[in-house]
């Protein structure tokens, strides 16, 4: 192929010369070039090596359907693989290189794969490794592992940077009446019509300038039209791809903001991911020219006919000197004239014999001829052609370029995203969009219209359709009939090669040949979906935009069926690839998910807390002194709580205000234990079950007044419990007069625990008589004041098993409360304690948390049968008695000691009988800690049959992940102060 830049052609800006590098060599191009047009202008024909066979590949198209010119752009942390050179705008300093080749695309050592074709036929991977279970242990895995890295290296495309992405991405949102996808003749006509009728219009164009196929017209002036339509108030979004349509007229757009700039403004995102909520969608996405399968139809120099027209009139590049155009339809003749006018020697092979066409006769037309085979490897030397009725006899034409047109496929992709199946049109040999009830209208060549005037008319009709459907007008309209060529198309998908195994490509990018399709058929993969997966046809990043129909037609032929009987694969979003960066937007790093902190957070970190994530919350983990490790610290903290006093931030607990005359009745229905007789000024621990009888959550409810309660929930289940209470009140028990309000953010809470906790509090409250042992009994609640007239709620609640109080103040007073409590706790050698110490204290007491109440556990499993009232009905009361929850085989909460008290074990350990260590065992350990009180490791968990069954038997804790086994003794989960004497002190 001999390409050249012509003087009087193109819309490029020749005053702005851009330099770029291709495979480390410097070249020049112009503003307005794509990387592909610049490469062609520099006469570079080989731009890549193919996926499996490493065959030299060139540029096949001028747009998003490109399946040959996939290149790597950028370097270091901005290295972007598999970029279509045909859509990458050229900028000064652009660095690009070929892929899938070593050392380069012109001389590739793996080119030998071309001769090992039979190893890479469809199903190669499946067959080679059949019988070798890749995901199970054993020999097979090793074989797979050994070969995998070679195979992956041999068959692959470019590789992405492994460095962190230096760019930022944004998510953006917009609304409009009508969004128009595509700025070709139909899209522009629709936009103008809709805007003139006062609709709010967004016009989206994936290209850098508007115009669509008109950009291949020499006289078309894109900026003139753009100004004209912007003046109508139309929002024009260029470099923006509508990649998917979703429910309710929601459109996903990817805007490439800086991918075309050499020195982007650092404040700009690289790409924007738009969610557009429209009332109506008009799709004028155009049509894509198909190629034809025949032997060696992939040699660099092969291109679609329309692409060469674009290269000529948009970029001023004549793509060949001696050009053969092969066609089965009328669409190529204008291009043939243009190319010969531009100085190329053009021959048209038309597979049809009877047709009439008016041309300027500057080129030869060979009627009834089809392409049979290309001779050449890195460039085209000549083309063998035959009569379509007798392909065995052929003659050879010398040429340097072969342009293909096997017909046109309307881009029905976006409509297909909505589950609308296209219908096959025999007359035009293509799939046409079907009608849909949704507010989506297809216009232009994406509804099978082949001439410009019809496209413009369809744009106006499309806008009218939108106006009617939106109830704004009631105007009659009609769409032009699909088609528009003088002579009918004659289907031509493949010219069979009879000499040997052929290299006649159906899907260029995945190296799928027509023989591969036949092989799949022979082996029974005849459903379109199976064909696709077995051969990987249409699964590359072009998603079969050019080759799918050819694959379908071959299968139809083999099955003796028509194409519509074989079916079409469903197109799914995205239309063109969307970067992961754009999908995640700003939700990266620390912004990956929301961060929740308590009002005491700053105070905690100021006082040396190391924090840990609990759900979205940051909670104090431990408060190390000097060189203390985590274990040193939590053991000291837990010991201090049991000896004197400790303070712990419990603000992350869910808090719900429950108010109204039926509050007591409400609580009595949702908790498994009785609440109707709870007195004002008392709190109660309660368990909530789900409808199915499994434990949902536990917490406390404090009766503040006759009709007012303050409920706490676990940190993790707070949101779920709130929604649940609202659901019950709004859907099931709609006659209950109860109001629930989340007050989690409004109150800051701490636990003050330990034998000296009352003394500390005495110094902190306004009136210490309120909290004496007599006035504030165990589970008593007081609404009172801290010193300085700070209103507070105090409840005598213990999670640690010690004398303890929970103190809540309004969030704004959190720091004042902490200063006050801490100042006084220090006087009693108290400490601040975190989640790790809290865990140790509660495991010693056998108190369950989320680790135990994991959604599979019943009240009885958790050893809390006494919390299930027998005197009332409540949520889950019938279902907790169902058979499966009652059998003797249930795993019951127990405590575990190591049989040898010097040993340790871990949470997650599987509990087994001594000579039967396998599978899921007979139980599991959920929480483990070192017990400062007992001075050895302890755990709680579940075992089938519970304590009674195993108290005299040594069991084994198997920990296959850590390759460890520990002999275990089963004990009561209440390992310390089982009678609770300390709490009542």
């Amino acid at each position: 192929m001999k390409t050249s830049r012509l003087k009087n052609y193109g819309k490029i800006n020749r005053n702005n010369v851009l330099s770029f590098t291709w495979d480390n060599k410097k070249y020049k191009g112009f503003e307005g070039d794509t990387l592909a047009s610049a490469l062609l202008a520099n006469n570079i024909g080989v731009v890549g090596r193919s996926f499996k066979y490493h065959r030299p590949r060139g540029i096949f198209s001028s747009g998003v359907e490109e399946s040959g010119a996939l290149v790597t752009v950028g370097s270091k942390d901005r290295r972007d693989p598999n970029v279509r050179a045909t859509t990458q705008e050229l900028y000064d300093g652009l660095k690009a290189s070929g892929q899938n080749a070593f050392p380069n695309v012109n001389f590739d050592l793996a080119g030998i794969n071309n001769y090992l074709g039979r190893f890479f036929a469809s199903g190669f991977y499946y067959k080679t490794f059949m019988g070798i279970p890749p995901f199970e242990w054993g020999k097979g895995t090793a074989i797979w592992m050994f070969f995998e890295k070679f195979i992956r290296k041999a068959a692959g495309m470019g590789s992405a940077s492994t460095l962190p992405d230096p760019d930022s991405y944004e998510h953006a949102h917009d609304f409009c009446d009508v969004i128009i996808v595509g700025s070709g003749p139909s899209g522009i006509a629709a936009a103008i019509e809709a805007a003139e009728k006062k609709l709010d219009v967004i016009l989206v164009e994936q290209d850098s300038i508007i115009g669509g196929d008109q950009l291949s017209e020499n006289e078309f002036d894109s900026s003139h039209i753009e100004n004209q339509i912007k003046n109508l108030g139309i929002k024009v979004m260029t470099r923006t791809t509508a990649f998917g349509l979703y429910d309710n007229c929601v459109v996903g757009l990817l805007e490439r903001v800086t991918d075309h700039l050499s020195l982007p403004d650092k404040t700009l995102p690289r790409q924007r991911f738009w969610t557009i909520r429209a009332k109506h969608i008009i799709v004028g996405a155009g049509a894509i020219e198909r190629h034809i399968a025949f032997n060696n139809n992939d040699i660099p120099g092969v291109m679609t006919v329309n692409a060469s027209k674009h290269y000529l009139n948009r970029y001023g590049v004549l793509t060949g000197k001696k050009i053969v155009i092969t066609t089965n339809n009328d669409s190529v003749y204008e291009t043939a004239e243009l190319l010969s006018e531009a100085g190329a020697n053009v021959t048209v092979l038309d597979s049809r014999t009877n047709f009439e066409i008016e041309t300027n006769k500057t080129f030869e037309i060979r009627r009834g001829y089809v392409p049979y085979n290309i001779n050449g490897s890195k460039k085209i030397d000549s083309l063998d052609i035959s009569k379509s009725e007798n392909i065995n006899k052929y003659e050879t034409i010398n040429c340097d370029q072969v342009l293909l047109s096997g017909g046109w496929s309307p881009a029905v992709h976006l409509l297909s995203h909505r589950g609308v199946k296209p219908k096959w049109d025999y007359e035009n040999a293509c799939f046409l969009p079907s009608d849909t009830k949704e507010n989506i209208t297809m216009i232009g060549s994406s509804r099978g219209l082949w001439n410009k005037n019809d496209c413009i008319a369809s744009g106006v009709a499309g806008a009218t359709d939108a106006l009617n459907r939106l109830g704004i007008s009631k105007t009659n309209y009609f769409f032009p009939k699909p088609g528009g060529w003088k002579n009918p198309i004659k289907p031509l998908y493949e010219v069979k090669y009879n000499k040997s195994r052929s290299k006649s490509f159906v899907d260029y990018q995945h190296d799928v040949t027509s023989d591969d399709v036949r092989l799949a058929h022979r082996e029974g993969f005849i459903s379109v979906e199976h064909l696709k997966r077995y051969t990987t046809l249409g699964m590359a990043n072009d998603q079969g935009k050019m080759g799918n129909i050819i694959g379908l037609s071959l299968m139809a032929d083999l099955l003796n069926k028509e194409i519509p009987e074989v079916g079409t694969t469903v197109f799914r979003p995205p239309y063109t690839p969307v970067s992961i960066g754009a999908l995640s937007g700003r939700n990266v790093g620390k912004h990956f998910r929301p961060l929740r902190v308590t009002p005491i957070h700053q105070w905690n970190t100021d006082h040396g807390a190391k924090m840990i994530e609990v759900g979205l919350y940051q909670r104090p983990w431990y408060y190390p002194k000097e060189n203390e490790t985590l274990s040193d610290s939590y053991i000291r903290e837990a010991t201090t709580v049991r000896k004197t006093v400790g303070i712990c931030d419990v603000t992350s607990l869910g808090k719900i205000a429950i108010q109204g005359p039926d509050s007591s009745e409400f609580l009595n229905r949702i908790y498994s234990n009785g609440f109707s007789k709870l007195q004002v000024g008392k709190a109660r621990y309660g368990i909530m079950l789900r409808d199915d009888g499994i434990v949902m959550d536990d917490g406390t409810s404090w009766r503040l007044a006759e009709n007012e309660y303050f409920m706490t929930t676990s940190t993790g289940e707070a949101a779920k419990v709130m929604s649940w209470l609202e659901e019950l009140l709004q859907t099931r028990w709609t006659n209950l007069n109860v109001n629930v309000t989340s007050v989690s953010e409004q109150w800051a809470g701490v636990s003050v625990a330990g034998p000296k906790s009352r003394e500390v509090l005495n110094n902190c409250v306004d009136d210490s008589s309120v909290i004496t042992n007599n006035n504030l009994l165990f589970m008593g609640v007081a609404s009172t004041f801290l010193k300085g007239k700070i209103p507070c709620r105090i409840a005598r609640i213990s999670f640690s098993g010690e004398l303890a109080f929970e103190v809540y103040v309004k969030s704004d007073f959190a720091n004042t409360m902490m200063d006050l409590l801490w100042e006084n706790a220090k006087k009693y050698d108290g400490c601040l304690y975190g989640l790790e110490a809290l865990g140790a204290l509660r495991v010693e007491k056998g108190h369950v948390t989320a680790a135990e109440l994991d959604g599979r556990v019943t009240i009885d499993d958790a050893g809390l049968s006494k919390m299930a009232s027998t005197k009332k009905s409540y949520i889950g009361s019938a279902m907790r008695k169902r058979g499966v929850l009652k059998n003797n085989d249930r795993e019951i909460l127990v405590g575990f000691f190591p049989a040898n008290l010097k040993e340790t074990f871990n949470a997650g350990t599987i509990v087994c009988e001594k000579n039967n260590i396998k599978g899921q065992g007979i139980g599991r350990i959920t929480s483990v800690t070192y017990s400062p009180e007992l001075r050895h490791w302890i755990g709680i968990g579940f075992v089938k049959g519970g304590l009674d069954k195993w108290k005299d038997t040594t069991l084994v804790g198997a920990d296959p992940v850590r390759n460890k086994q520990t002999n275990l003794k089963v004990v009561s989960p209440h390992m310390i102060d089982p009678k609770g004497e300390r709490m009542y002190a």
Partner: protein
Amino acid sequence: MIRINCPYCGERDHSEFSYGGDATIKYPSLDSSEKEWTKAIFFRKNIKGFQLETWHHTNGCRMWLEIERSTVTHEIRSVKPCHPDLKKVVENNK
């Protein structure tokens, strides 16, 4: 993306809402038998077409809504508050 026209907040993305479940289920009284509860909880219809379902406007007004939605097309025919009294209020204000 499904868009839901909340009677209190207006039309919003479905990501603001949480799906509840079948809105036609009559939950038995709390003292009903295990058999009746089993029927209500586990035996659900798998409807193709329009079904009445509950949604919670979790990141909005926090109202539980009764929505008539097609499981095939996601088309929504009606959105009402679940609570019968509120349903009447919304109906009367139309």
